[in-house]
C-alpha cells in the first residue's frame, strides 16, 4: 500500500473509534432476538448497541457480509464497546459468524461460554439467544454434549419475567438436557430435579416424565401420561421435535403389554409409521401381543411381514419363534417345524459371526466394528445383514456419525475459509487503493475552487467518509486475520480428539448390541428347541388320532372351504410361501399387521368330533 493510503489509515485509526457507545446505560432498552441461528433470525436492538453495529449485523444476517468479515467486525465491536450488553452481543456475533462459516464445534463452545455466564437484566436475552443456538445445534447433531453449567443458570432465567419465545427456548434446552442425562444414566434424584424445571409445559413434562418412569418400570403411570398425549393429533409441537411419536408409541405399547392390555398395545404398534426405524421392533412386538392375546392367525401374519422384502434384513429372530409357537397352538405342526427350520437357516450365519466375534473379544483381540459398519454401508463388507442393520439403526451410531460428518466438513471449510479471508482482505485493499486514486484529483480540484473558510463539497465529503469506512473495515479484517487463523487451526487440532471420542462411543454401543444379539439368539434357539419337543409330542398324538379317524382330512378340508371371509385384512401367504425366501416386490402398505389365512387345525378336530356325534345321534 502506498504511503498516502497508510497515512489515511492512521488518520482513521487515531481518530476516535467511529462506533462508540454514546448511549448511557440508563437509556438502554435491551436487545432481543428470535429464531436464533436460523435463516429467519431477527433482532430488535436496544439503545446499547450502536446503529452502525446493528447495520453490520443485519447485513451479516442478510448474507451480504461474509463470515470472515463478520468475525472481524464482531472482534472490533468487542474491542471498542464498553457496555456489558454490547460486549456480550459481540461475543454472540463472533460465535454466530463461526456457526455461519460451518465451524459448528467452535461456535458451540462460544455459545456455551455465553450461556454459562451470570444472568442480569442486560445480558439475559443474549444468553437466551446463545441457548437458542445451542438448541439448533443439538437438534441437528444430537451427539453434542449439553453443558450442566447452562442448566444451573436456567433457574435464574426462569425466575425473571420472560416472553413466550425465550421461555420456549429455555424449556427446549431443559427437555433436551433431561433426555441426554436420562440416556447417560444420571441419578434419579437429578432427573427428578430436572423434571420440576419442566413444570411450565405440561406435554413436555409428561412426556419427559414418562420416559423416566418407563426406564424405572412404572408402566401404569406411563400409560396415564402418554395415552392422553398420543390421543392428540400429531403436530409440530415442542415435544415432537424432541421425541418422535413412533418412539413414544413403542414405549406406551410396552407398558400396555406389561399390564396385560394386549389389544391396546397392538393398537399403538399398528400406528407406527411404515417408514419408521422402529417398525421392525414394533412388528416383532406386535406378533408377541397377538400371541399373548391368543390371536394366532394375526401373530403369524404379522411375523410374516418381517420375512418380506427389506424387512428380512432386520434383526428380529423372535418373529419366527412367535410364528412357530402360534402354528403349534393351532396344531399346524409341520408348518411350525418349518418356521423353526427357517429361523435356523436365516440366522445361522448371524449366529456364527457373533460367536466368532465373541470368542475373538474374549481372547483379547479387537475387531474394528466402526470400520465394519462403514464398509457395510459402502457394500464392501461381509458382515451378516442382520448384525449390520442392527448397528445402523442405533441412535448412537446415527448421532455420532452425523457429528463425524460435521468434523469432516469443518476440515474442508477451514481450508476454504482461510483462503476466503485472505482473498477478501486483498480485494478490499485494491478497492481502497482505487477509490483513493480516483478521489485525490477530485479533492485537489475542489480545493482549488474553494474560497477561504469554505468546506469541501458534500459529495466529496461523503466519498471521503466512505473511504474512511472502507479503511476501518480493512483494518479490522487485517487485525482479525491472525485470530481467525488461530481459531481455524485450533478447530483442526480438536477434531482428532472429537473423532476419537465419537468412534469410541460407537464401538462401545456396537459391542453392547452384539452381546445382546448373541444372547437373544441363544435364548430363541433354546425356546425353539422346547417348541420342537412340544410339537413332536403333539404331532405323535395327532398322527395316532388321525389314524383312528381316517376321514378327518377330507372333513377338515371342507371346514376350510366353508370359512366365511374375514372382514379384516387377510394375507393369503399359503403354507409354502410362509417359509420360502420372499424376494418379491414389497409395497409399504403391505408391511404391518395382517391376518394369516390359515385354519385352526385343533378347532377342526373339535368340529369333526361334534359333526360325528350329530351324525351318530
Amino acid at each position, binding site marked *: 500500500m502506498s504511503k498516502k493510503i497508510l497515512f489515511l489509515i492512521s488518520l482513521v485509526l487515531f481518530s476516535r473509534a467511529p462506533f462508540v457507545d454514546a448511549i448511557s446505560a440508563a437509556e438502554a432498552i435491551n436487545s432481543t432476538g428470535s429464531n436464533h441461528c436460523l435463516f429467519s433470525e431477527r433482532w430488535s436492538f436496544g439503545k446499547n448497541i450502536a446503529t452502525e453495529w446493528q447495520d453490520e449485523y443485519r447485513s451479516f444476517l442478510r448474507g451480504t457480509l461474509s463470515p470472515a468479515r463478520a468475525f472481524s467486525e464482531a472482534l472490533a465491536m468487542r474491542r471498542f464497546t464498553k457496555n456489558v450488553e454490547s460486549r456480550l452481543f459481540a461475543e454472540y456475533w463472533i460465535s454466530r459468524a463461526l456457526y455461519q462459516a460451518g465451524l459448528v464445534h467452535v461456535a458451540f463452545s462460544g455459545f456455551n461460554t455465553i450461556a454459562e455466564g451470570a444472568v442480569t437484566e442486560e445480558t439475559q436475552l443474549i444468553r437466551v439467544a446463545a441457548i437458542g443456538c445451542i438448541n439448533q445445534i443439538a437438534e441437528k447433531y444430537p451427539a453434542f454434549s449439553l453443558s450442566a453449567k447452562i442448566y444451573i443458570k436456567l433457574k435464574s432465567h426462569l425466575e425473571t419475567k420472560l416472553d413466550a419465545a425465550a421461555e420456549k427456548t429455555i424449556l427446549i434446552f431443559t427437555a433436551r438436557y433431561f433426555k441426554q442425562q436420562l440416556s447417560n444414566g444420571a441419578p434419579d434424584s437429578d432427573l427428578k430435579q430436572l423434571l420440576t424445571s419442566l413444570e411450565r409445559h405440561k406435554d413436555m413434562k409428561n412426556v419427559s416424565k414418562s420416559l423416566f418412569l418407563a426406564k424405572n418400570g412404572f408402566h401404569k403411570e406411563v400409560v396415564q401420561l402418554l395415552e392422553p398425549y398420543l390421543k392428540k393429533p400429531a403436530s409440530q409441537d415442542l415435544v415432537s421435535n424432541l421425541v418422535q411419536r413412533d418412539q413414544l408409541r413403542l414405549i406406551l405399547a410396552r407398558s400396555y403389554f406389561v399390564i396385560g392390555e394386549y389389544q391396546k398395545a397392538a393398537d399403538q404398534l399398528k400406528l407406527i409409521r411404515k417408514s419408521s426405524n422402529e417398525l421392525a421392533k414394533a412388528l416383532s412386538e406386535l406378533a408377541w401381543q397377538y400371541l399373548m392375546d391368543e390371536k394366532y392367525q394375526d401373530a403369524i401374519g404379522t411375523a410374516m411381514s418381517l420375512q418380506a422384502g427389506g424387512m428380512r434384513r432386520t434383526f428380529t429372530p423372535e418373529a419366527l419363534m412367535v410364528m412357530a409357537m402360534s402354528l403349534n397352538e393351532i396344531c399346524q405342526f409341520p408348518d411350525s417345524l418349518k418356521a423353526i427350520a427357517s429361523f435356523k437357516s436365516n440366522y445361522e450365519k448371524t449366529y456364527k459371526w457373533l460367536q466368532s466375534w465373541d470368542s475373538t473379544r474374549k481372547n483379547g483381540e479387537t475387531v474394528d466394528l466402526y470400520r465394519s459398519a462403514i464398509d457395510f454401508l*459402502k457394500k464392501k463388507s461381509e458382515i451378516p445383514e442382520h448384525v449390520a442393520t442392527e448397528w445402523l439403526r442405533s441412535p448412537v451410531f446415527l448421532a455420532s456419525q452425523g457429528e*463425524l460428518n460435521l468434523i469432516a466438513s469443518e476440515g474442508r471449510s477451514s481450508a476454504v475459509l482461510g483462503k476466503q479471508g485472505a482473498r477478501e482482505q486483498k480485494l478490499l485493499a485494491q478497492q481502497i487503493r482505487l477509490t483513493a486514486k480516483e478521489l485525490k484529483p477530485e479533492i485537489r480540484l475542489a480545493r482549488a475552487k474553494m474560497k477561504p473558510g469554505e468546506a469541501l463539497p458534500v459529495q466529496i465529503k461523503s466519498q471521503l467518509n466512505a473511504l474512511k469506512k472502507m479503511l476501518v473495515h480493512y483494518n479490522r479484517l487485517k487485525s482479525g486475520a491472525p485470530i481467525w487463523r488461530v481459531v481455524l487451526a485450533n478447530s483442526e487440532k480438536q477434531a482428532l480428539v472429537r*473423532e476419537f471420542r465419537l468412534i469410541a462411543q460407537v464401538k462401545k454401543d456396537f459391542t453392547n448390541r452384539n452381546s445382546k444379539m448373541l444372547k437373544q439368539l441363544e435364548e430363541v434357539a433354546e425356546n425353539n428347541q422346547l417348541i420342537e419337543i412340544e410339537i413332536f409330542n403333539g404331532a405323535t398324538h395327532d398322527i395316532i388320532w388321525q389314524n383312528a379317524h381316517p376321514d378327518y382330512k377330507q372333513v377338515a378340508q371342507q371346514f376350510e372351504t366353508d370359512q366365511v371371509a374375514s372382514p379384516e385384512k387377510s394375507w393369503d401367504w399359503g403354507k409354502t410361501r410362509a417359509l420360502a425366501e420372499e424376494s418379491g*416386490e*414389497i409395497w409399504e402398505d403391505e408391511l404391518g399387521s395382517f391376518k394369516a389365512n390359515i385354519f385352526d387345525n385343533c378347532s377342526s378336530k373339535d368340529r369333526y368330533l361334534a359333526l360325528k356325534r350329530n351324525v351318530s345321534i
Partner: protein
Amino acid sequence: MKFIRIIVFVFTVLVLSLPLHSLAAEEVNVDTIKEKYWAKGEQAEMGVVQNRLYSKARKFEVGFYGGIISSDPFLTVKNAGASVGFHFSEYLGLNFIAWKSYSSPSTALQTFEETIGATTNNNKPQGFYGAEGAASILYGKLSLVGRKIIYYDFHLLGGVGQTQTESGNYITPFAGLGQQTYLSSFFSLRIDYRLMRYEETIIEKVITPKLGKPVGNRINWSNSITVGITLLWGPGK
C-alpha cells in the same frame, strides 16, 4: 541437546499421527438410514416400493412399434419405427426415436376427388427422428378383470426432432404421454401418444402452371399414437 530435541520432535509426530491411523473416521451419509434403515440407504428401496419387480433404473431399452398419425384430414398416415434409450433412474430416461411414415389418400380425399373431380394440395410426411426425455411418474399394480395383476408404468414425454416430408425437413418439438405394461422383467407393451408441431411448406400439386412451386406455409399439428414392444436390459437390477 540438538539430538534430544530431534528425538522428542519425532516422538511427538509419531504420537500425534497414531490416532489418525487407528481412528480412520469416514464420512457416510446417515440421512438415508434415519428412516427405513433396512433399505441400507439404497435409493431404489427408500421409496414406497421395495425390491421393485420391474425395474428400469440403469437399463437400456429398445423398442419396436407401429401406429397412426393424424395430421392432414386428406391423408392417412401410418408409421413403423424403433427407439433406443437409457433409464438413468426409475424416474428419468432418454430415448432416441425414429420412424418411417407411410402416407396414402384418406377416404375424405377419395370422396372429394370422386365428387368434385379434382384434388387438393397436401404434404405427405415421410418419416421422423428425434430425442425425447421421459419422466416415469406413476408405477403400480392393476387388476386385469380381476383375474391377474399387471404392472403398469405411466410416463410423460417431451422432446424435439425432425419431420421429413415431401416438401422438406422441419424441426418438430413435441410432448406426450404413454404407458408401459410389463410382460416380464425384459419385455413390456408400450403405448405412446405424442402431439407434434412443425411449420411446413405446401407445394402446388393441382394447378398446372404452378406445379411444384411453393404455395404457402402452414402450422401442422400431428397426433401420433404408437403401440409396440420394448426390450429392457443392462447393468440395473
